Protein backbone atom coordinates (compact mmCIF):
# COMPACT_ATOMS: atom_id res chain seq x y z
CA UNK A 1 0.00 0.00 0.00
CA UNK A 2 1.66 3.13 -1.03
CA UNK A 3 1.45 6.24 1.04
CA UNK A 4 0.18 9.38 -0.47
CA UNK A 5 3.24 10.98 -1.88
CA UNK A 6 3.18 14.62 -2.81
CA UNK A 7 2.67 14.97 -6.51
CA UNK A 8 5.89 15.03 -8.40
CA UNK A 9 6.45 18.26 -10.21
CA UNK A 10 5.42 18.19 -13.83
CA UNK A 11 8.42 17.12 -15.87
CA UNK A 12 10.29 19.89 -17.59
CA UNK A 13 10.21 19.96 -21.33
CA UNK A 14 12.92 17.90 -22.91
CA UNK A 15 14.23 14.41 -22.46
CA UNK A 16 11.74 12.88 -20.11
CA UNK A 17 8.60 14.05 -21.71
CA UNK A 18 9.88 13.13 -25.14
CA UNK A 19 10.70 9.69 -23.87
CA UNK A 20 7.35 9.30 -22.25
CA UNK A 21 5.76 10.53 -25.45
CA UNK A 22 7.68 7.97 -27.47
CA UNK A 23 6.86 5.31 -24.97
CA UNK A 24 3.16 6.11 -25.04
CA UNK A 25 2.93 6.26 -28.78
CA UNK A 26 4.89 3.05 -29.10
CA UNK A 27 2.51 1.15 -26.89
CA UNK A 28 -0.52 2.69 -28.52
CA UNK A 29 0.78 1.97 -32.00
CA UNK A 30 1.72 -1.60 -31.19
CA UNK A 31 -1.63 -2.15 -29.51
CA UNK A 32 -3.45 -0.76 -32.52
CA UNK A 33 -1.32 -2.91 -34.81
CA UNK A 34 -2.14 -6.00 -32.80
CA UNK A 35 -5.83 -5.12 -32.88
CA UNK A 36 -5.75 -4.61 -36.63
CA UNK A 37 -3.79 -7.79 -37.16
CA UNK A 38 -6.17 -9.76 -34.98
CA UNK A 39 -8.85 -8.99 -37.54
CA UNK A 40 -6.75 -10.51 -40.30
CA UNK A 41 -9.08 -13.51 -40.80
CA UNK A 42 -11.66 -11.07 -42.12
CA UNK A 43 -9.60 -10.91 -45.31
CA UNK A 44 -11.18 -14.19 -46.29
CA UNK A 45 -14.65 -12.81 -45.94
CA UNK A 46 -16.49 -12.89 -49.23
CA UNK A 47 -20.10 -12.37 -50.12
CA UNK A 48 -21.17 -12.31 -46.49
CA UNK A 49 -24.03 -9.92 -46.96
CA UNK A 50 -24.98 -7.00 -49.18
CA UNK A 51 -26.53 -3.62 -48.52
CA UNK A 52 -29.82 -4.80 -49.99
CA UNK A 53 -29.83 -7.94 -47.92
CA UNK A 54 -28.76 -6.14 -44.77
CA UNK A 55 -31.58 -3.64 -45.05
CA UNK A 56 -34.19 -6.09 -46.26
CA UNK A 57 -37.48 -6.13 -44.36
CA UNK A 58 -39.20 -9.13 -42.82
CA UNK A 59 -41.01 -11.35 -45.31
CA UNK A 60 -44.42 -10.32 -44.06
CA UNK A 61 -43.66 -6.66 -44.50
CA UNK A 62 -42.46 -6.81 -48.08
CA UNK A 63 -44.84 -5.32 -50.64
CA UNK A 64 -45.27 -7.33 -53.85
CA UNK A 65 -42.99 -4.91 -55.67
CA UNK A 66 -40.31 -5.21 -52.99
CA UNK A 67 -40.69 -8.97 -53.06
CA UNK A 68 -40.08 -8.96 -56.80
CA UNK A 69 -36.86 -7.04 -56.20
CA UNK A 70 -35.79 -9.49 -53.57
CA UNK A 71 -36.49 -12.43 -55.88
CA UNK A 72 -34.45 -10.74 -58.60
CA UNK A 73 -31.61 -10.24 -56.17
CA UNK A 74 -31.67 -13.89 -55.21
CA UNK A 75 -31.73 -14.97 -58.84
CA UNK A 76 -28.79 -12.69 -59.51
CA UNK A 77 -26.82 -14.07 -56.60
CA UNK A 78 -27.50 -17.66 -57.60
CA UNK A 79 -26.49 -16.94 -61.16
CA UNK A 80 -23.29 -15.31 -60.03
CA UNK A 81 -22.36 -18.23 -57.87
CA UNK A 82 -23.52 -21.18 -59.95
CA UNK A 83 -23.78 -19.76 -63.47
CA UNK A 84 -27.27 -21.17 -63.70
CA UNK A 85 -30.26 -18.92 -64.12
CA UNK A 86 -32.80 -20.10 -61.53
CA UNK A 87 -36.52 -19.48 -61.45
CA UNK A 88 -37.19 -17.96 -58.04
CA UNK A 89 -40.79 -17.45 -57.03
CA UNK A 90 -42.75 -16.74 -53.91
CA UNK A 91 -45.67 -19.14 -53.73
CA UNK A 92 -48.61 -18.14 -51.55
CA UNK A 93 -50.75 -20.63 -49.62
CA UNK A 94 -53.96 -21.83 -51.26
CA UNK A 95 -57.32 -21.20 -49.65
CA UNK A 96 -58.99 -24.11 -47.93
CA UNK A 97 -55.83 -26.16 -47.75
CA UNK A 98 -54.26 -27.69 -44.69
CA UNK A 99 -51.41 -30.01 -45.48
CA UNK A 100 -51.04 -33.28 -43.69
CA UNK A 101 -48.48 -36.02 -44.11
CA UNK A 102 -49.16 -39.66 -43.35
CA UNK A 103 -46.45 -42.26 -43.23
CA UNK A 104 -47.15 -45.95 -43.26
CA UNK A 105 -44.81 -47.69 -40.84
CA UNK A 106 -45.90 -51.07 -42.17
CA UNK A 107 -44.50 -50.17 -45.58
CA UNK A 108 -41.33 -48.17 -44.90
CA UNK A 109 -38.30 -50.32 -45.68
CA UNK A 110 -35.66 -47.90 -44.43
CA UNK A 111 -33.93 -47.34 -47.78
CA UNK A 112 -33.26 -43.62 -47.09
CA UNK A 113 -34.16 -42.63 -50.62
CA UNK A 114 -36.45 -39.95 -49.22
CA UNK A 115 -33.49 -38.42 -47.39
CA UNK A 116 -31.49 -37.92 -50.54
CA UNK A 117 -34.39 -36.93 -52.78
CA UNK A 118 -35.11 -34.21 -50.25
CA UNK A 119 -31.51 -33.05 -50.30
CA UNK A 120 -31.57 -32.88 -54.09
CA UNK A 121 -34.91 -31.11 -54.33
CA UNK A 122 -34.23 -28.61 -51.60
CA UNK A 123 -30.66 -27.62 -52.38
CA UNK A 124 -29.30 -28.71 -49.05
CA UNK A 125 -25.61 -28.42 -48.38
CA UNK A 126 -23.71 -31.58 -49.31
CA UNK A 127 -20.70 -30.79 -47.20
CA UNK A 128 -21.16 -30.17 -44.36
CA UNK A 129 -24.14 -32.36 -44.79
CA UNK A 130 -27.62 -31.09 -44.11
CA UNK A 131 -30.50 -33.55 -44.26
CA UNK A 132 -34.04 -32.82 -43.19
CA UNK A 133 -35.08 -36.44 -42.82
CA UNK A 134 -33.66 -38.89 -40.31
CA UNK A 135 -34.61 -42.52 -40.68
CA UNK A 136 -34.57 -44.40 -37.40
CA UNK A 137 -34.11 -48.11 -37.28
CA UNK A 138 -36.05 -49.44 -34.33
CA UNK A 139 -36.41 -52.88 -32.80
CA UNK A 140 -39.84 -54.39 -33.26
CA UNK A 141 -42.35 -53.53 -30.65
CA UNK A 142 -40.90 -50.36 -29.24
CA UNK A 143 -41.26 -46.67 -29.97
CA UNK A 144 -38.56 -45.75 -27.49
CA UNK A 145 -36.32 -43.56 -29.60
CA UNK A 146 -33.43 -44.08 -27.30
CA UNK A 147 -33.16 -47.51 -28.85
CA UNK A 148 -33.06 -46.10 -32.35
CA UNK A 149 -30.14 -46.63 -34.68
CA UNK A 150 -29.44 -43.64 -36.92
CA UNK A 151 -26.41 -45.00 -38.72
CA UNK A 152 -27.47 -48.45 -39.83
CA UNK A 153 -25.67 -49.62 -42.96
CA UNK A 154 -26.47 -53.27 -43.74
CA UNK A 155 -26.11 -54.72 -47.22
CA UNK A 156 -29.82 -54.64 -47.66
CA UNK A 157 -32.94 -53.41 -45.95
CA UNK A 158 -35.37 -54.16 -44.42
CA UNK A 159 -33.73 -56.27 -41.74
CA UNK A 160 -35.59 -58.89 -39.75
CA UNK A 161 -36.74 -57.79 -36.34
CA UNK A 162 -36.71 -54.08 -37.05
CA UNK A 163 -38.97 -51.38 -38.38
CA UNK A 164 -37.98 -48.03 -39.80
CA UNK A 165 -39.32 -44.65 -38.89
CA UNK A 166 -38.39 -41.57 -40.91
CA UNK A 167 -38.64 -38.35 -38.92
CA UNK A 168 -38.69 -34.86 -40.35
CA UNK A 169 -40.40 -31.60 -39.41
CA UNK A 170 -43.79 -32.61 -38.06
CA UNK A 171 -45.34 -29.27 -39.00
CA UNK A 172 -46.80 -28.97 -35.54
CA UNK A 173 -50.12 -27.21 -35.07
CA UNK A 174 -48.65 -25.80 -31.91
CA UNK A 175 -45.01 -25.39 -32.88
CA UNK A 176 -42.60 -24.72 -30.02
CA UNK A 177 -39.99 -23.47 -32.48
CA UNK A 178 -42.23 -20.60 -33.57
CA UNK A 179 -43.01 -19.66 -30.02
CA UNK A 180 -39.38 -19.26 -29.02
CA UNK A 181 -37.94 -17.41 -32.00
CA UNK A 182 -36.99 -13.97 -30.67
CA UNK A 183 -37.33 -12.21 -34.03
CA UNK A 184 -40.31 -14.00 -35.62
CA UNK A 185 -38.07 -15.39 -38.31
CA UNK A 186 -40.10 -18.59 -38.30
CA UNK A 187 -43.86 -18.87 -38.33
CA UNK A 188 -46.77 -21.05 -39.32
CA UNK A 189 -48.47 -20.36 -42.63
CA UNK A 190 -52.24 -20.72 -43.16
CA UNK A 191 -51.74 -24.03 -44.96
CA UNK A 192 -49.96 -25.43 -41.91
CA UNK A 193 -46.37 -25.23 -43.10
CA UNK A 194 -43.94 -23.74 -40.63
CA UNK A 195 -41.49 -21.69 -42.66
CA UNK A 196 -38.32 -19.74 -42.02
CA UNK A 197 -37.33 -16.43 -43.53
CA UNK A 198 -33.69 -17.24 -44.18
CA UNK A 199 -33.01 -13.56 -44.67
CA UNK A 200 -34.38 -12.62 -41.28
CA UNK A 201 -33.09 -15.41 -39.03
CA UNK A 202 -30.30 -14.28 -36.70
CA UNK A 203 -29.05 -17.79 -36.06
CA UNK A 204 -29.58 -17.98 -32.32
CA UNK A 205 -30.58 -21.67 -32.59
CA UNK A 206 -33.21 -21.34 -29.89
CA UNK A 207 -35.72 -23.00 -32.21
CA UNK A 208 -33.35 -25.91 -32.70
CA UNK A 209 -33.26 -26.42 -28.94
CA UNK A 210 -37.04 -26.14 -28.75
CA UNK A 211 -37.92 -28.63 -31.48
CA UNK A 212 -38.79 -32.00 -29.92
CA UNK A 213 -38.19 -33.82 -33.20
CA UNK A 214 -34.65 -32.83 -34.13
CA UNK A 215 -36.10 -31.34 -37.28
CA UNK A 216 -34.11 -28.16 -37.57
CA UNK A 217 -30.74 -27.80 -39.21
CA UNK A 218 -28.28 -24.97 -38.91
CA UNK A 219 -25.82 -23.76 -41.50
CA UNK A 220 -22.69 -24.08 -39.41
CA UNK A 221 -20.65 -22.75 -42.31
CA UNK A 222 -21.19 -21.76 -45.92
CA UNK A 223 -23.28 -24.49 -47.53
CA UNK A 224 -21.84 -26.15 -50.60
CA UNK A 225 -23.86 -27.57 -53.46
CA UNK A 226 -22.17 -28.92 -56.60
CA UNK A 227 -23.35 -26.91 -59.57
CA UNK A 228 -24.62 -29.95 -61.42
CA UNK A 229 -26.87 -30.88 -58.54
CA UNK A 230 -28.48 -27.47 -58.11
CA UNK A 231 -32.25 -27.44 -58.46
CA UNK A 232 -33.05 -24.21 -60.32
CA UNK A 233 -36.78 -24.26 -59.49
CA UNK A 234 -36.67 -22.21 -56.30
CA UNK A 235 -38.89 -20.40 -53.89
CA UNK A 236 -38.27 -17.75 -51.27
CA UNK A 237 -39.57 -19.70 -48.30
CA UNK A 238 -38.44 -22.99 -49.72
CA UNK A 239 -35.39 -24.33 -51.43
CA UNK A 240 -33.38 -21.29 -52.52
CA UNK A 241 -29.75 -21.63 -51.40
CA UNK A 242 -29.21 -20.56 -47.81
CA UNK A 243 -26.40 -18.56 -46.28
CA UNK A 244 -24.03 -19.36 -43.50
CA UNK A 245 -25.48 -18.91 -40.03
CA UNK A 246 -29.19 -19.43 -40.64
CA UNK A 247 -31.65 -22.14 -39.76
CA UNK A 248 -33.48 -24.37 -42.19
CA UNK A 249 -35.74 -27.42 -42.11
CA UNK A 250 -38.33 -29.43 -43.98
CA UNK A 251 -41.09 -27.25 -45.42
CA UNK A 252 -43.09 -29.97 -47.16
CA UNK A 253 -41.41 -28.94 -50.43
CA UNK A 254 -43.31 -25.69 -50.42
CA UNK A 255 -42.18 -24.91 -53.97
CA UNK A 256 -43.83 -28.10 -55.20
CA UNK A 257 -46.79 -28.53 -52.90
CA UNK A 258 -48.04 -24.99 -53.31
CA UNK A 259 -48.16 -25.68 -57.03
CA UNK A 260 -50.31 -28.72 -56.36
CA UNK A 261 -47.53 -31.30 -56.68
CA UNK A 262 -46.46 -34.00 -54.28
CA UNK A 263 -43.35 -33.50 -52.18
CA UNK A 264 -40.10 -35.04 -53.41
CA UNK A 265 -39.78 -37.56 -50.56
CA UNK A 266 -43.19 -38.96 -51.43
CA UNK A 267 -42.46 -39.38 -55.10
CA UNK A 268 -39.19 -41.18 -54.54
CA UNK A 269 -40.39 -43.62 -51.90
CA UNK A 270 -40.17 -47.04 -53.60
CA UNK A 271 -42.57 -48.57 -51.10
CA UNK A 272 -45.34 -46.02 -51.35
CA UNK A 273 -45.15 -45.51 -47.62
CA UNK A 274 -45.64 -41.77 -47.83
CA UNK A 275 -48.96 -40.03 -48.36
CA UNK A 276 -49.58 -36.35 -48.52
CA UNK A 277 -52.45 -34.03 -49.22
CA UNK A 278 -55.07 -31.61 -48.11
CA UNK A 279 -56.75 -32.78 -44.92
CA UNK A 280 -59.67 -30.43 -45.56
CA UNK A 281 -60.51 -32.19 -48.81
CA UNK A 282 -62.55 -35.33 -48.00
CA UNK A 283 -61.49 -36.88 -51.30
CA UNK A 284 -57.78 -36.69 -50.50
CA UNK A 285 -55.62 -39.65 -49.64
CA UNK A 286 -54.82 -38.26 -46.23
CA UNK A 287 -58.47 -37.71 -45.39
CA UNK A 288 -59.10 -41.33 -46.36
CA UNK A 289 -56.28 -42.50 -44.11
CA UNK A 290 -57.38 -40.43 -41.16
CA UNK A 291 -60.90 -41.76 -41.61
CA UNK A 292 -60.19 -45.43 -42.26
CA UNK A 293 -56.97 -46.44 -40.56
CA UNK A 294 -57.29 -47.40 -36.97
CA UNK A 295 -54.14 -46.37 -35.17
CA UNK A 296 -52.05 -43.28 -35.63
CA UNK A 297 -48.99 -42.12 -33.89
CA UNK A 298 -48.30 -38.48 -33.47
CA UNK A 299 -44.77 -38.52 -32.15
CA UNK A 300 -44.48 -37.34 -28.57
CA UNK A 301 -48.16 -36.60 -28.49
CA UNK A 302 -47.87 -35.84 -24.80
CA UNK A 303 -45.96 -32.65 -25.54
CA UNK A 304 -49.05 -31.05 -27.01
CA UNK A 305 -47.33 -30.02 -30.23
CA UNK A 306 -50.06 -31.67 -32.28
CA UNK A 307 -48.07 -32.70 -35.33
CA UNK A 308 -49.56 -32.65 -38.82
CA UNK A 309 -47.47 -35.73 -39.48
CA UNK A 310 -49.18 -39.04 -38.76
CA UNK A 311 -47.58 -42.43 -38.59
CA UNK A 312 -50.01 -45.23 -39.30
CA UNK A 313 -50.15 -48.93 -39.95
CA UNK A 314 -51.94 -51.10 -42.43
CA UNK A 315 -54.70 -53.21 -40.89
Amino acid at each position, binding site marked *: MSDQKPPSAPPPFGEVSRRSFL*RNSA*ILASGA*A*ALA*ASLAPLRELSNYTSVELFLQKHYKELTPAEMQKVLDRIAREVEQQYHIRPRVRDYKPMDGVEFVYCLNLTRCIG*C*RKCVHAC*VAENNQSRNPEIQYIRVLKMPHGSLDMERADHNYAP*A*SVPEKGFFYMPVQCQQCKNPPCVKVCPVKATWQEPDGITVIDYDWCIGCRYCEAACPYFARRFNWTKPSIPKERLNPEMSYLGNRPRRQGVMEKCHFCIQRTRQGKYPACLEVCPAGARKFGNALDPESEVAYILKNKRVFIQLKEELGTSPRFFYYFDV
Partner: protein
Amino acid sequence: MQFICEMSATVKTNWVLRVLTALFLGLAMAFLCNGWGYSAKLFPIPLVDTNFISTATVRMSAADLIRSGGDTSDFECYACHERNKPFKLKFDAEGDVLVPKEHANIVMGHGRHHRNNNCFNCHDETNLELLQTRDGRHLKISDSPALCGSCHGPTYRDWEAGVHGRTSGYWKRDLGPIDRKVCTSCHNPHSPPFPSRQPAPGPHPLHPAVDGKLIARSES
Protein backbone atom coordinates in the same frame (compact mmCIF):
# COMPACT_ATOMS: atom_id res chain seq x y z
CA MET B 1 15.94 -4.64 -2.54
CA GLN B 2 15.16 -1.28 -1.12
CA PHE B 3 16.84 0.16 -4.12
CA ILE B 4 14.73 -1.76 -6.57
CA CYS B 5 11.59 -0.70 -4.83
CA GLU B 6 12.65 2.84 -5.03
CA MET B 7 13.96 2.38 -8.52
CA SER B 8 11.64 5.05 -9.55
CA ALA B 9 8.16 3.92 -10.46
CA THR B 10 8.66 5.48 -13.88
CA VAL B 11 11.49 3.14 -14.72
CA LYS B 12 9.45 0.12 -13.79
CA THR B 13 6.52 1.38 -15.76
CA ASN B 14 8.77 1.98 -18.71
CA TRP B 15 9.92 -1.57 -18.50
CA VAL B 16 6.44 -2.97 -18.40
CA LEU B 17 5.40 -0.84 -21.32
CA ARG B 18 8.39 -1.89 -23.36
CA VAL B 19 7.65 -5.54 -22.77
CA LEU B 20 4.02 -4.99 -23.63
CA THR B 21 4.94 -3.20 -26.84
CA ALA B 22 7.09 -6.14 -27.82
CA LEU B 23 4.33 -8.57 -26.94
CA PHE B 24 1.77 -6.65 -28.96
CA LEU B 25 4.04 -6.61 -31.98
CA GLY B 26 4.74 -10.30 -31.62
CA LEU B 27 1.05 -10.96 -31.36
CA ALA B 28 0.40 -8.91 -34.47
CA MET B 29 2.90 -11.01 -36.39
CA ALA B 30 1.38 -14.21 -35.09
CA PHE B 31 -2.08 -13.08 -36.16
CA LEU B 32 -0.86 -12.20 -39.64
CA CYS B 33 0.79 -15.59 -40.01
CA ASN B 34 -2.39 -17.18 -38.69
CA GLY B 35 -0.71 -18.70 -35.68
CA TRP B 36 -3.91 -20.25 -34.34
CA GLY B 37 -5.19 -21.45 -37.65
CA TYR B 38 -8.63 -22.60 -38.50
CA SER B 39 -7.86 -24.37 -41.71
CA ALA B 40 -11.46 -24.47 -42.95
CA LYS B 41 -10.92 -28.16 -43.46
CA LEU B 42 -13.96 -30.24 -44.30
CA PHE B 43 -13.84 -33.97 -44.39
CA PRO B 44 -14.79 -35.19 -47.84
CA ILE B 45 -18.28 -36.62 -48.25
CA PRO B 46 -18.87 -38.45 -51.53
CA LEU B 47 -21.84 -37.30 -53.56
CA VAL B 48 -24.69 -39.73 -53.33
CA ASP B 49 -25.29 -42.07 -56.27
CA THR B 50 -28.11 -40.67 -58.41
CA ASN B 51 -29.79 -44.09 -58.33
CA PHE B 52 -30.84 -43.22 -54.83
CA ILE B 53 -32.78 -40.21 -56.02
CA SER B 54 -34.38 -41.88 -58.99
CA THR B 55 -38.15 -42.12 -58.83
CA ALA B 56 -38.29 -45.28 -60.94
CA THR B 57 -40.46 -48.09 -59.63
CA VAL B 58 -38.77 -51.30 -58.57
CA ARG B 59 -40.07 -53.09 -61.68
CA MET B 60 -42.16 -52.50 -64.79
CA SER B 61 -45.75 -53.56 -65.02
CA ALA B 62 -47.09 -54.90 -68.29
CA ALA B 63 -48.89 -51.62 -68.80
CA ASP B 64 -45.64 -49.70 -68.18
CA LEU B 65 -43.83 -51.89 -70.65
CA ILE B 66 -46.45 -51.42 -73.33
CA ARG B 67 -46.55 -47.68 -72.76
CA SER B 68 -42.80 -47.29 -72.77
CA GLY B 69 -42.35 -49.59 -75.79
CA GLY B 70 -40.29 -52.07 -73.80
CA ASP B 71 -39.83 -55.75 -74.40
CA THR B 72 -43.27 -57.31 -74.16
CA SER B 73 -42.31 -60.68 -75.57
CA ASP B 74 -43.14 -62.27 -72.23
CA PHE B 75 -46.77 -61.46 -72.83
CA GLU B 76 -46.96 -62.98 -76.27
CA CYS B 77 -47.86 -66.45 -75.10
CA TYR B 78 -48.83 -67.83 -78.42
CA ALA B 79 -45.44 -67.25 -79.85
CA CYS B 80 -44.58 -70.57 -78.17
CA HIS B 81 -47.85 -72.08 -76.94
CA GLU B 82 -50.33 -73.50 -79.32
CA ARG B 83 -53.77 -71.87 -79.37
CA ASN B 84 -56.81 -73.99 -78.39
CA LYS B 85 -54.63 -76.77 -77.07
CA PRO B 86 -55.62 -77.57 -73.47
CA PHE B 87 -52.77 -77.16 -71.09
CA LYS B 88 -51.85 -79.61 -68.35
CA LEU B 89 -50.00 -78.49 -65.20
CA LYS B 90 -47.59 -80.86 -63.44
CA PHE B 91 -47.13 -80.99 -59.67
CA ASP B 92 -44.44 -82.44 -57.45
CA ALA B 93 -44.98 -84.71 -54.48
CA GLU B 94 -45.62 -81.77 -52.13
CA GLY B 95 -48.27 -80.46 -54.39
CA ASP B 96 -46.25 -77.53 -55.71
CA VAL B 97 -46.54 -76.76 -59.35
CA LEU B 98 -43.55 -77.72 -61.47
CA VAL B 99 -42.37 -74.66 -63.42
CA PRO B 100 -41.31 -75.66 -66.93
CA LYS B 101 -37.78 -74.68 -67.82
CA GLU B 102 -39.01 -72.19 -70.43
CA HIS B 103 -40.41 -70.20 -67.50
CA ALA B 104 -37.43 -70.68 -65.21
CA ASN B 105 -37.42 -66.93 -64.46
CA ILE B 106 -40.67 -67.40 -62.57
CA VAL B 107 -40.36 -68.09 -58.87
CA MET B 108 -43.57 -69.39 -57.45
CA GLY B 109 -43.88 -67.45 -54.27
CA HIS B 110 -47.39 -66.11 -54.12
CA GLY B 111 -49.00 -66.95 -50.84
CA ARG B 112 -47.47 -68.68 -47.91
CA HIS B 113 -49.37 -71.93 -47.62
CA HIS B 114 -48.84 -73.72 -50.94
CA ARG B 115 -52.41 -72.93 -51.73
CA ASN B 116 -51.88 -70.47 -54.51
CA ASN B 117 -50.01 -73.06 -56.48
CA ASN B 118 -51.96 -73.15 -59.66
CA CYS B 119 -51.10 -70.94 -62.66
CA PHE B 120 -54.76 -70.92 -63.62
CA ASN B 121 -55.80 -69.32 -60.38
CA CYS B 122 -54.97 -66.12 -62.22
CA HIS B 123 -54.19 -66.97 -65.83
CA ASP B 124 -56.98 -67.96 -68.17
CA GLU B 125 -56.32 -71.50 -69.31
CA THR B 126 -58.45 -70.97 -72.39
CA ASN B 127 -56.60 -67.83 -73.43
CA LEU B 128 -53.14 -67.52 -71.89
CA GLU B 129 -52.90 -63.86 -72.84
CA LEU B 130 -55.77 -63.07 -70.50
CA LEU B 131 -56.20 -63.17 -66.78
CA GLN B 132 -59.17 -64.57 -65.00
CA THR B 133 -60.67 -63.90 -61.63
CA ARG B 134 -62.26 -66.50 -59.39
CA ASP B 135 -65.68 -65.11 -60.20
CA GLY B 136 -65.05 -65.76 -63.87
CA ARG B 137 -64.21 -62.35 -65.28
CA HIS B 138 -61.59 -62.22 -68.00
CA LEU B 139 -59.09 -59.37 -67.92
CA LYS B 140 -56.29 -58.08 -70.08
CA ILE B 141 -52.78 -58.53 -68.65
CA SER B 142 -52.46 -54.77 -68.36
CA ASP B 143 -55.61 -54.62 -66.20
CA SER B 144 -54.07 -56.69 -63.46
CA PRO B 145 -55.24 -54.55 -60.46
CA ALA B 146 -58.77 -55.80 -60.78
CA LEU B 147 -57.46 -59.33 -60.70
CA CYS B 148 -55.33 -58.71 -57.61
CA GLY B 149 -58.23 -56.88 -56.03
CA SER B 150 -60.46 -59.89 -56.45
CA CYS B 151 -58.53 -61.51 -53.59
CA HIS B 152 -56.86 -58.58 -51.81
CA GLY B 153 -59.99 -56.62 -51.08
CA PRO B 154 -58.85 -54.18 -48.39
CA THR B 155 -55.57 -53.46 -50.15
CA TYR B 156 -57.44 -52.89 -53.39
CA ARG B 157 -59.76 -50.49 -51.65
CA ASP B 158 -56.74 -48.59 -50.29
CA TRP B 159 -55.14 -48.60 -53.70
CA GLU B 160 -58.23 -47.17 -55.32
CA ALA B 161 -58.13 -44.35 -52.79
CA GLY B 162 -54.49 -43.72 -53.68
CA VAL B 163 -53.42 -44.92 -50.25
CA HIS B 164 -51.76 -48.20 -51.08
CA GLY B 165 -48.88 -47.99 -53.48
CA ARG B 166 -47.03 -45.29 -55.27
CA THR B 167 -48.39 -42.06 -56.63
CA SER B 168 -46.75 -39.11 -58.24
CA GLY B 169 -47.73 -35.92 -59.96
CA TYR B 170 -50.35 -33.67 -58.44
CA TRP B 171 -52.14 -33.96 -55.13
CA LYS B 172 -54.38 -31.19 -56.39
CA ARG B 173 -56.11 -32.82 -59.31
CA ASP B 174 -57.43 -29.64 -60.93
CA LEU B 175 -53.87 -28.42 -61.40
CA GLY B 176 -52.51 -31.60 -62.93
CA PRO B 177 -52.86 -35.36 -63.15
CA ILE B 178 -51.95 -37.93 -60.56
CA ASP B 179 -49.93 -40.83 -61.82
CA ARG B 180 -50.92 -43.94 -59.93
CA LYS B 181 -48.78 -47.03 -60.27
CA VAL B 182 -50.35 -50.46 -60.43
CA CYS B 183 -49.73 -53.54 -58.33
CA THR B 184 -47.22 -55.06 -60.69
CA SER B 185 -45.16 -51.86 -60.82
CA CYS B 186 -43.83 -52.90 -57.44
CA HIS B 187 -44.89 -56.49 -56.86
CA ASN B 188 -43.83 -59.42 -58.95
CA PRO B 189 -47.14 -61.24 -59.35
CA HIS B 190 -45.50 -64.64 -59.02
CA SER B 191 -43.57 -63.61 -55.94
CA PRO B 192 -45.14 -60.50 -54.54
CA PRO B 193 -43.18 -59.65 -51.38
CA PHE B 194 -41.50 -56.29 -51.82
CA PRO B 195 -37.84 -56.88 -52.65
CA SER B 196 -35.17 -55.78 -50.23
CA ARG B 197 -32.55 -53.35 -51.41
CA GLN B 198 -29.35 -51.59 -50.48
CA PRO B 199 -29.97 -48.56 -48.29
CA ALA B 200 -28.62 -45.15 -49.27
CA PRO B 201 -25.73 -43.86 -47.14
CA GLY B 202 -26.50 -42.66 -43.64
CA PRO B 203 -25.80 -39.25 -42.13
CA HIS B 204 -22.28 -37.86 -41.72
CA PRO B 205 -21.60 -36.05 -38.46
CA LEU B 206 -20.46 -32.45 -38.49
CA HIS B 207 -17.49 -33.23 -36.30
CA PRO B 208 -16.36 -36.75 -37.06
CA ALA B 209 -15.11 -38.73 -34.11
CA VAL B 210 -11.99 -40.85 -34.31
CA ASP B 211 -11.55 -43.47 -31.61
CA GLY B 212 -14.37 -41.88 -29.72
CA LYS B 213 -12.55 -38.54 -29.67
CA LEU B 214 -14.14 -35.59 -31.36
CA ILE B 215 -11.99 -33.85 -33.90
CA ALA B 216 -12.64 -30.19 -33.44
CA ARG B 217 -12.07 -28.64 -36.81
CA SER B 218 -10.43 -25.60 -35.35
CA GLU B 219 -7.34 -27.64 -34.69
CA SER B 220 -5.70 -27.63 -38.05
